[in-house]
């Protein structure tokens, strides 16, 4: 703001006055729904999940093994149409402890979220997922080894949620 300007337009309203109808307002909730086809590469990924496997795709040119899989390599711009099952274990790259739900409401039991670099994919190829079977979130560490905990085969629908969460890997 310039010191040459002396008038600052804008009038703040009280949120409660709007919500409780004390000032003119209009409310509308659109009823819009979507049904997405899951595409060439992600269809393979989701079919894999239904069978209890994490499927990656490999670039024909640079050879990167990529997860989530994609039909083309965004770097080489060539087909990445070799689909390879990789492991369902990995390493925590970063994590967070969320007390906030999607609508910004607060939740008591935190959601544990992480980026997990998956074994068998190229270095640094992580996926977003949840963590579970952890009593105290302070036990979570960067670099911690984890393994997918799957839903039972009959419960799987071909969704990222066919993996319930990743839990600490008991080595050996």
């Amino acid at each position, binding site marked *: 703001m*310039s010191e040459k300007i002396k008038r600052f337009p804008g009038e703040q309203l009280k949120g409660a006055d709007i919500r409780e109808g004390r000032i003119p307002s209009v409310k509308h909730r659109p009823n819009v729904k979507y049904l997405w086809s899951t595409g060439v590469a992600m269809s393979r990924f989701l079919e894999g999940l239904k069978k209890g496997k994490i499927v990656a795709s490999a670039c024909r040119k640079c050879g990167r093994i*990529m997860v989530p899989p994609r039909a083309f390599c965004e770097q080489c711009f060539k087909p990445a149409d070799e689909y390879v099952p990789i492991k369902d274990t990995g390493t925590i790259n970063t994590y967070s402890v969320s007390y906030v739900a999607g609508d910004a409401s607060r939740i008591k039991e935190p959601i544990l979220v992480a980026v997990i670099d998956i074994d068998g994919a190229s270095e640094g190829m992580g996926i977003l997922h949840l963590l579970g079977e952890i009593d105290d979130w302070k036990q979570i560490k960067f670099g911690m080894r984890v393994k997918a905990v799957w839903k039972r085969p009959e419960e799987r629908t071909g969704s990222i949620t066919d993996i319930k969460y990743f839990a600490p890997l008991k080595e050996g």
Partner: protein
Amino acid sequence: MEMFGKKRVAVIGAGMTLFRRNLKETGKELAWEASSMALDQAGLELKDIQSVVMGTAPDAFDGVHMKGEYLADGAGSWRKPYSRVFVGGGTGVFTIDAGWWHVASGQFDTCLVVGEEKMSSCYPHPAYAFTTIFDPIYARPLGVTLIWIFALEMHRYMHVHGIKKEEIARVSVKNKRNALDHPCAQLGANITVEDVLNSEVMCWPVQRLDISPTSDGAAALILASEDVAKKLTDNPVWIDGVGWCIDSTFWTNRDLYFPQYVQGAAQMAYKMAGIKNPPKEIDVAEVYDPFDYKELHHMEGLMLARKGQAPKLTAEGVTQRDGDLPINPSGGLLGVGNPIAAAGTMKCCEIFWQLRGEAGKRQVKGDPRTGLAQAWGDLMQYGSVVIMRS
């Protein structure tokens, strides 16, 4: 200086509304207020404007899914060449970049650049609209919400460099204090590092006072070609560098500790402005700070600090208004508020006012000649930069 484009481009006027939650004015009315103020400051009327670029972020906030057209009248675009640009949170600074090429191309002598956002219309909270920015197939079924991705990035940044929360909290303290001197600011306050550390844990390591607010507001700038600018003002501010860059949407496939896309945008702008040593040559910067850690992260992306060193500069007071490299003298998004596209444009306005010596109580010391504004957006993948000189 090497010439980029056909014409050199100046900023000759700027304006902005109050930034607040629940402003009475519609988005169109806010855009009109800011645009009118910028025209007044430039000594122009709407008939003098040859082109208009409007920046505004996701349609889902306003709930009008042709937002550019809906806001057009407020941006003064009636029967003029008009476009709306949108690159997520990077929009506010990309809007002036787009305005630059309108004039630099030689196609137009003037361009009105407007950033607008009205987030509080999304009810009861705009966070819900943000859930629709994620990939519907592999991300949304997990219940992902915007704050998660910032928390994951912040945590990675802290882990790689061994940065403590209290080092990051200093940014929030500085910016909210700076905002006390900004007459349009939403959240100017005197708080302490302890206040930040004791605030509600939202999504560890992100706490309540690490985050900028939900805001409504608009900001605008007038751009003119060199010959027109020199007729209208004795102290134009020149746009000497523009840059923008995007990374892959697969944000879980890259190391989040460093924003390469911001570096890419900065390299483009520095090259154009002939800047070889950014920390020495930039006198004042408005760095995108929707979260306190982002100011540090972006200072490193902009090469204003070496990797992992931005917290140290902050602790030493270098980034204070009276420091050697003042960062966010306006108060930033943490203090002035974060109406997304308008917030980035506000940063461009602040650099303009700083370089003209008009910033009043917020004026940084030492007659700044070169300033930078930067914004960032999308799924942690977009950077936009502008460099101005007086």
